[in-house]
């Protein structure tokens, strides 16, 4: 697929502390991996060294289905980065993941940038690969599920 946003934005790289590296590696192979606690089995996102529920340091990365619902949204008009100068309006969604304790991730909603936005609408993930970028990476985008 054509990337949703024009190229030239900062490219994501795993943090030097290693905390979110499995997440980024997972996206490359079209798998959504998030933190899950071996102590209490709860899901957690964004990544942290300790489980906020039971304080276990024993956290694993586990695959979850990239199905979500719109928790909130925004249609951005004003470009704050030169790469987006000619972009026009674009949509950012905050996506709740019911299969993973309703943790949230941020992405773009692909399709018409003027489409109506409905909190609670069901979405499915779309893996957006950037193999030519340096470094190569994959973003997780979203589309409305009919």
């Amino acid at each position, binding site marked *: 697929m054509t990337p949703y*946003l024009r190229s030239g*934005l*900062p*490219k*994501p*790289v*795993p*943090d*030097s502390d290693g905390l*979110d590296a499995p997440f*980024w590696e997972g996206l490359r192979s079209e798998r959504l991996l998030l933190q899950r606690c071996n102590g209490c089995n709860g899901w957690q*996102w*964004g*990544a*942290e060294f300790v489980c*906020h529920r039971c304080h276990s340091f024993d956290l694993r990365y586990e695959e979850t289905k990239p199905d979500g619902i719109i*928790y*909130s*949204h*925004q*249609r*951005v*008009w*004003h470009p*704050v*980065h*030169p790469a*987006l100068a000619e*972009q026009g*309006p*674009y949509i*950012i969604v*905050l996506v709740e993941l019911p299969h993973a304790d309703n*943790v*949230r*991730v*941020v*992405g*773009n909603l692909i399709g018409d940038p003027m489409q109506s936005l409905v*909190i609670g609408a069901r979405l499915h993930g779309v893996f957006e690969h950037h193999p030519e970028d340096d*470094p190569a*990476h994959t*973003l997780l985008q979203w589309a409305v599920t009919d």
Partner: protein
Amino acid sequence: MSPERTLRGRTAVVGVAETEYYKWGKSPDPEFKLAIEAVLKACADAGIDPRDIDGFSSYSNDRSEASRLSAALGCKQLSFASMQWGGGGGGGSGALANGAAAIATGQAECVVVFRALAQGQFGRFGQGPRIRTVSGHPAHTVPYGLMSAAQMFAMKVTRFMHDYDVHQEALRAISLASYAHAQHNPRAVMYDRPLDEAKYDSSRWITEPFHLFDCCQENDGAAAMILVSAERAKDFPHKPCYVMAAVSGSQHRAGAPVHNTPEYASSGFTTVAPRLYAMAGMKPSDVDVLQSYENFTGGVLMSIVEHGFCAPEECNEFFTIENLLAPSGKLPLNTSGGNLAECYMHGLGLNIEAVRQIWGESTCQIPGANVAMVGSGPMVTPVSSCIFGSEATL
């Protein structure tokens, strides 16, 4: 709360000042020079020798470092130097709380609370990062085009407006009130630049639900306030403006990364506001005038709800220009023009305006104002708020 564990009435503001307020990049002076100028002017306003300042308190990683300021001003000694953690204007009243706590506990005698900001010299807030790669928590938002303050907060406001059916007109009323008050304030950058409903409605979107006029300015300048003990405060030219309460914080896991805070549709005051009122021994109806930090109008709306002035279901009725205008509105709001229309001095101008209301020196004075509240930096964490009172409130 036991009497020993309160800031209520322990300290007072005895001098305030700001530099000239400039549009972004228009300051002829570098940031540190602006800081010095504001501190010296505040000392002159208080009638004190700047060498007697022994404490410095700021926030948002102010670059004008306390030890350098103390040395530059030839202060006799440095007793207290404090930086409130957190970004944005969330520390405006928190820095005041820290300074007041230092004086109340005998750590310092005379603290200056200040903020200096030259976005021309150091780069603008409203722009995304010009970097090739991004890591850590920002890596999970920036590549999706989420990188400015407006974009970080818009989805909180959208969710709140959805949950309580708040209309755009409620945000508009907040913006109109700030601009209306600025027309009386010659210090305001937007003095002589009035705003009406049509101009607001036709202004471009920055990001929905924020029009251009829902967003704060970007400015250069500096502001400072002089704080001393309540005992000493009686000996100054201004009548004392007492700190009746000042608190900071945020609710459970407000800082959960990548927009995962449980209470998402919030300004962050749900635990702070009750502590504020408890310390002051006051309730919302005691407040004569409110200064509420406008990074974006939606944050003001949620702050006002979370400080108990209006139920979330009542926003459309409460947020009208009539209710928010000085002097006769139900809750006069941002009477200097605030961050939207006076100057974006990271909100310290709001604290100064609250003090001027208690002194009777505002350009939009509420007659007989005895209680003035400030809410600082909604939607960041930590946030903070404070209540100033006249002698009658002690």
